[in-house]
Structures are given as structure tokens and as C-alpha cells.
């Protein structure tokens, strides 16, 4: 099930048919992703990737790559606004970025040895618990 099929337009030189439906669907997916990025400070890939796979019929690896190319400029805009409000600690951000990159490399390497399915369930419980802790 997908709302709109854009593959004909995306994979060719044909311009996008700016139908009412296309504008609303693409616009809404974009705005929701941007709002989550700006309001909560997290990527937004958690929303954007499933939206591209299920609503726009994209393959997983295309959705993954394309979502990053959208979230990168989005995060830059959000960062500027947080910086304008003095809400960024650059020294800590640098430490996170360096150790995070090393971790990302390790994670990608470990991927084939880790039972992601079970870990995902554990991770979900962990997220819900952290969320409840933040609400109360």
C-alpha cells in the first residue's frame, strides 16, 4: 500500500506532476520531519525512512541514503537557531561527534554479528522507560 507512486518521475528526467495530492503528501512528510528535527533535536529519520518506504514506495537503502541528504541541511538550519539562542555546548558536541563516529564505525562492523531483532525489542523497552522517566 502506498499513497503516491513517484518512481516514474524520480527515475526519469520527467518533471514532477505538481498535483494537489503530490504537494500535500511530500509537503506534509517534509514538514513533520523538519518539526521533529527542530523541536526535539533528533534526526527525524525515524519518521522519514518509514514514510519513504511505505508511502512513497522507495527501497530501504534508497530511503536511508535520501533521508540523510534531507536531514543534513535540516539539522544545519535547526543548529543555527539553537546557536542563536545559545543552546549549544560546542565542546561537548565535539566530544560526542568524535566518539560517536568511532562508535558508528564499530556498530556498522558489528552489524552482522548482532541479533538485531532481539536487540531492537530491548532497545524499544529502553526508549519507552527513558521516555516515562522524562515525562514524570
Amino acid at each position, binding site marked *: 500500500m502506498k499513497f503516491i507512486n513517484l518512481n516514474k518521475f*524520480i527515475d526519469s528526467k520527467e518533471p*514532477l506532476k505538481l498535483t494537489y495530492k503530490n504537494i500535500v503528501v*511530500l509537503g*506534509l512528510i*517534509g*514538514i513533520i*520531519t523538519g518539526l521533529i*528535527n*527542530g*523541536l526535539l*533535536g*533528533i534526526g527525524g529519520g*525515524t519518521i*522519514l525512512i518509514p514514510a519513504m518506504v511505505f508511502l*512513497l514506495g522507495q*527501497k*530501504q*537503502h*534508497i530511503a536511508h*541514503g535520501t533521508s540523510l*541528504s*534531507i536531514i*543534513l541541511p*535540516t*539539522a*544545519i*538550519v535547526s*543548529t543555527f*537557531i539553537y546557536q542563536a539562542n545559545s*543552546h*549549544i*555546548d*560546542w565542546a*561537548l*558536541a*565535539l566530544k*560526542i*561527534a*568524535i*566518539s560517536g563516529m568511532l*562508535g*558508528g564505525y564499530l*556498530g556498522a*562492523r*558489528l*552489524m552482522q554479528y548482532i541479533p538485531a531483532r532481539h*536487540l*531492537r*525489542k530491548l*532497545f*524499544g*523497552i*529502553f*526508549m519507552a522507560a*527513558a*521516555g*516515562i*522517566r*522524562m*515525562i514524570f
Partner: protein
Amino acid sequence: MLIYIIGLLMGILSGLAMGGGTLLVPALVILMNIPQHTAQGICLAAFIPTAAVAVITHLKQKNIKLKLTLYLAIGALLGAFLGATWANHVDAPLLRKIFGVFLVLMGIYEFFSKPTQEK
């Protein structure tokens, strides 16, 4: 030292494609007592260099459909401007609660989501 351990763990989760960034904010807030807005700002800033490297890699592997990027980025940039401005007008305790609600929903989604067949 704790900050490096948090960064490393979140990086590993990101590398495993399990959205480590989502847990970075609560880790900074709960474990390091960093204010909510600053934790979110750190998360955004730290994301940029990692994402830039990843985008270059994906471009080389032709995993990016630039037309789709263009059309979705228009809304996303507008949303980011509105969302970030909004976040900076909300006080920290409320923003923390909003984040918490989102995290619970994401946790439930993560728990029930099926792993994708394709890598």
C-alpha cells in the same frame, strides 16, 4: 569520560541502524544533568559531521535520489525553522515532557516494528 562513553554507545546504536540519536538526548539529560535545550542542541550539532560523511558515502553508492531530496527538503527546512523556533520558546520542563512522550511512542514502534529484509 562519561561523555565519550555515551558518544561511543550512541554511535554504535546508530551504526546498527537503531537510531542512537534518539537516546542521546535522554542520556545527556538523565545521566549528565544537561539542560533539555542544550542536550537537543548538542545532538543536532554532533549529528552534522557524521551525517555529512554518510551523505558523501551514500552519494558515491548512488543511494540518494536527488529529486526526492529536493521536494522533501523544502518542507523539512520550513519545519525545522518552525520547530526549532518553537522549541526555544518552550520552557525546559515542558520540552522535556514533550520529548518524553515522543520517546515512549518511538519505543513502542521500535518494539513492534519488524526488521527490514533488505539491508
